[in-house]
């Protein structure tokens, strides 16, 4: 037997086909060589396993693209401002607003950095926006220093804390994490009332914020108790599974 007897050719394309080819890869014509019927199945040149692509949106690219689009309203506002007022005034607010939008929503999609850094950058962006409002409205420094900045800083701190609690690597039980988060929300509202009092030069015992704090604390305590009951905890895990 010589090898010539076992050569298969595509009757359509005239090319010789490797023994592993069940049909011509160029035209799809099936290989029919009566001499090869009883032969062992030849090894295919590539394994059967296919590496699939999952179709996902390129978030980084989209975020970069949106960032560029944001320049259009900014330049339009600045141009309108210059044409009407002969100088840049209120359009600085558009700049500040876009800066906040960019740092809060788009930056996390574009750059990877420690969570705390995101919060710092976000807080700084909001601070810049508040500062622009103060300068452009020529209002007093009081609201900016006693109200705007402290509330911004505390909110950023709380967001950072939330992100830590939401981290997959966090080893604290989920119900305890919710307890901490609820307590945080309650305390933040109390702090906001305190700073409002400070701004009005009328610091007093918290009143309206207690309506938020107490339900938060009650709910947090309930969750803590639930956390100690393994059976209830299991039931919650089952029903809220996602």
């Amino acid at each position, binding site marked *: 037997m010589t090898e010539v007897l076992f050569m298969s050719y595509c009757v359509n*394309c*005239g*090319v*010789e*086909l*490797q023994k*592993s*080819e*069940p*049909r*011509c*890869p*160029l*035209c799809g014509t099936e290989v029919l060589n009566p001499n090869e019927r009883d032969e062992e199945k030849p*090894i*295919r*040149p*590539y*394994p*059967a*396993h*296919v*590496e*699939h*692509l999952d*179709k*996902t949106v*390129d978030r*980084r*690219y989209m975020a*970069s*693209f949106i*960032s*560029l689009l944001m320049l259009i309203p900014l330049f339009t506002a600045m141009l309108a401002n210059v044409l009407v007022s002969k100088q840049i005034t209120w359009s600085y607010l558009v700049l500040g607003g876009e800066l906040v939008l960019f740092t809060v929503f788009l930056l996390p999609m*574009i*750059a990877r950095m420690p969570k705390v850094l995101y919060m710092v950058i976000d807080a700084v962006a909001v601070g810049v926006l508040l500062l622009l409002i103060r300068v452009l409205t020529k209002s007093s420094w009081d609201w900016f220093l006693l109200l705007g900045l402290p509330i911004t800083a505390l909110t950023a701190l709380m967001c950072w804390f939330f992100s830590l609690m939401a981290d997959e690597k966090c080893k604290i039980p989920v119900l305890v994490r919710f307890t901490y988060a609820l307590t945080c929300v309650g305390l933040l509202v109390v702090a906001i009332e305190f700073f409002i009092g400070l701004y009005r030069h009328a610091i007093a015992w918290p009143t309206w914020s207690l309506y938020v704090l107490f339900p938060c604390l009650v709910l947090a305590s309930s969750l803590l108790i639930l956390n100690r009951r393994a059976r209830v905890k299991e039931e919650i895990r089952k029903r809220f599974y996602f």
Partner: protein
Amino acid sequence: MSKNKKPTKWMKLDNAALIYPATMNRSWTALFRLSATLTEPIDEDILEVAQKRTLRRLPWFAYKLKRGLFWFYLEHSDDLPKIEQDVANPCVRMRLSENEGFCMRVRYYQNRIAVEFFHVLTDGTGGQVFLQTLVAEYLRLKYGANIPRSEKILDCSEEPKPEEAEDSFAKHSGRITQTRKEVKAYHIKGTDERNGFVHIITGSMNAQDVLAKAKEKGVSATVYLTAVLILSVDAIQRRKVPSIHNYKPVKVSVPVNLRNVFHSKTLRNFANYVNPGIDPRLGEYTFDEVLNIVHHTLAMEVTEKLLNVKITTNVRSEQNTVLRLTPLFIKNMALKYVYSQVGDALSSTTISNLGVAKLPEEMAQYVRRMDFILGPLADNRVCSAALTYNGRLRINFTRTIAEPWLEREFFTRLVKLGIPVKVESNQRE
């Protein structure tokens, strides 16, 4: 402790590599693959040791791609890439996060060792040095083969040489630049493959047959194959496009190894492209006419002076102060746009011929076959790569559409020209 820690080695991307990270996305990475098929099944453990020793000699391949504020850069890693089982669709996109950040991956299947490279690291010539050194080291460890080392098969007991990592584009750039403007070429369109399946069809032929036919016409094998490819694309356009007024130029991108023109020992990217082609609106071309065009285009453009102008144009763009100071995310979008205008758009397909792989007898007795595959291109749906080893010239077509029009047209043309072709593929049963 941390004060005594050595700073991590890093390097800038070479001039040609700059475009690739900017244009990569979640479903596409600019890859190419080199493989060697041995006489016996591959031993994964030995391959892992061989890879470790090869990476110690060629640390430039153990760099991870990182994002800077203004540019991407490469950072050395002491980790080792995992050896992987091969898959049915080679050169499918490389997700760096899954690949531990490495820009290459070593895969094996039966008797075959394959290395897939992201183009940020190297080009075909550099990749060939890596693969041959890896295989030589594997054979030494497995069979005790005493393989003589050379410039193409490096000695893993030697220290890495800095000139192997130089950016030769920067070194060989001159003063004169030229526009990159060129007419866009016809692109073959077809049915998208779902889930990113990459079709590979390999046509193997006797290298002497091709060389003899090329000599008959007084041209090189690369010119001969390029002319056949141009006529194949031309035939497809004439079938698919109804009006002659809508015909676009048919051009084939032919990579040129600049090491043959400029003196360089770099193992990083050092290649450029020439796009010979025809304008089908002017009428039908004979084979001899196309051979003539390709032969003279290559002869005219592959000269030290003209290649220097091309290199300088690219290096000058990189040195532009505005571009350098532009944040990376904006720069990426600009580079993506530039690539869409002057990248794949200028050619209908690619044929990258790495030439003849010559191995010393001590190594060749264990190596049955060698292949070169280009990964899918960004815009062009079909491309090809050729490598000759052991008297067989293998042309691998890579395709991301369902229809094998170009491969069929190309291989049947070769058969009609009197060159017998044997084909195999990764088609699903």
